[in-house]
């Protein structure tokens, strides 16, 4: 119940954040503007719009998760709204979890909005929407939930700017972790390979969540793949949230 109260409050507060609307505006401009790129193609308009719609949802979602997420705790400390709340008879983790859920709800609204806008736009342009398109968006949302958990963890540990830089770097590099698996054969059996493999598992593998190719070209994906990726996202997110709760538990405010 308390978690829900905090979540509701967080949602209401972040909906009022102007940065959110600036980012959404640019996302809309990007999506609508992608049609212009279609003019210089030879009939790939719809594919290009789909690609850009999905990428825009991903990138702007990540930016929102980072900007709103990393400043979350810091703003509360800076503005001292935190003191009276934490002095209430509640556990610290309830606060962090509430904050997280509020953010996640915000991102759900953002994602759904962008999906609806993109879908309507694509249909208006005469394209068709394949199930894979919506599965791609579902996985993007799971990715955003993971990154948000990371942002909340960082906001308990460090200042918002440093936290934003760290989360952003992880977000970019997280798409590249598969590179640790493409090692040429001379690496077999070395400690370097073991180290890189460990790195592969520790760094969140964000390329798992990328179904853009299949979505834009109308190709089916297997249910098994989607389910396991969602499980991965859930497990990793929970890891991050537990760490965030631990960090916040010990924090002097």
């Amino acid at each position, binding site marked *: 119940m*308390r978690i829900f109260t905090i979540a509701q409050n967080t949602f209401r507060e972040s909906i009022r954040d102007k940065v959110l609307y600036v980012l959404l505006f640019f996302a809309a401009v990007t999506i609508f503007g992608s049609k212009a790129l279609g003019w210089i193609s030879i009939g790939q308009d719809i594919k290009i719009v789909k690609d850009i719609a999905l990428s825009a949802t991903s990138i702007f979602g990540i930016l929102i998760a980072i900007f709103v997420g990393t400043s979350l705790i810091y703003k509360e400390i800076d503005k001292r709204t935190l003191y*009276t709340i934490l*002095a209430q*008879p509640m556990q610290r983790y309830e606060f962090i979890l509430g904050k997280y859920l509020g953010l996640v709800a915000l991102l759900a609204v953002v994602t759904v909005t962008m999906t609806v806008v993109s879908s309507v736009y694509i249909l208006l342009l005469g394209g068709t929407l394949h199930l894979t398109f919506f599965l791609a968006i579902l996985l993007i949302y799971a990715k955003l939930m993971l990154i948000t958990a990371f942002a909340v963890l960082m906001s308990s540990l460090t200042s918002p700017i440093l936290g934003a830089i760290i989360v952003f770097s992880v977000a970019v590099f997280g798409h590249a972790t598969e590179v640790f698996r493409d090692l040429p054969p001379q690496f077999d059996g070395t400690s370097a390979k073991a180290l890189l493999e460990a790195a592969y598992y520790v760094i969140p593998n964000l390329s798992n969540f990328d179904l853009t190719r299949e979505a834009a070209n109308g190709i089916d994906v297997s249910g098994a793949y989607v389910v396991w990726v969602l499980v991965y996202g859930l497990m990793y997110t929970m890891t991050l949230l537990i760490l965030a709760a631990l960090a916040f538990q*010990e924090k002097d405010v």
Partner: protein
Amino acid sequence: MSAIVTKNLSKIYREVGKASVKSLDGLDLTIEENEVYGFLGRNGAGKTTTIKILCSLLKPTSGEAFVFGESVRTPQARQHIGYLPEQPYFYEYLTPKETLDFYGKLRNLSPAERNHQWDKLSDLLDLRDIADQRIKGFSKGMRQRIGFAVALMGDPPLLILDEPMSGLDPIGRRMIRDLIMRCRDEKKTLFFSSHVMSDVEQICDRVSILVKGKLTHRGRIDQLLESQTKAVEIITAGLSDETRRTLRERATDYRALDEQDIFVLPDEAAANEAVQQLQQQGGRIVQFTPIRESLEDFFLRQQTPTNEEAR
């Protein structure tokens, strides 16, 4: 059961690359139920640190603290506490009513209880007129009232207030003083910090003084202060020049104001003699005031470096 007990409470701030700062050093404190307890000290003495530890916002480096027998690290302890921080902030976009409702939910109060609390507190703190305006733009006094209401939400038996009167005009300070007294009448315990001695002197039963993180004095005010009269101030009128002259010889200080003569005499005995002389020689006593050491005097006295601190 004591409302607050601390045992050897210490807090050291360590930062990478800087020297560690000992904010609290071995604090032993006991506050009894239904007391109004003043926690005094200069800025930076460690008052806010202590309060934050009691409210579990900070972790002590060593030592323990208990509220009504529960360790302060548990949520149960916080159940008993109503906390008003220095310069409280709230979510600017909420109204006072929404704010109190929010905190009521955090205390797991039912909707009926929340409404009941709202009715009670909005009357007590005069919030009805501003009930539905957003907090953004409120004055310091209004925010303090809301903060007090939040602290009282859920009717906790212990109120911990950090500098509750700072930044308020005389009317505001009076209001807070009255509230504290009311709470005391309702059998609550009040623990608050301040560096404004005159406020404290009027309402506290007992006080502690914190100097650079260490507790130097504690106890009842009247027991701490010197019981002897420091001086006596007599305001007179209608004196003859001669009376004035003789009295001035006895007095340690003299000034004339409008048509009054004001003398300060070193003790009660001398003052009584002066009064007798006045009555014999003619003149009117407008006011006779024994000056005792004020808490402020006492406090300032503590601040002069002792041998220990000079080391």
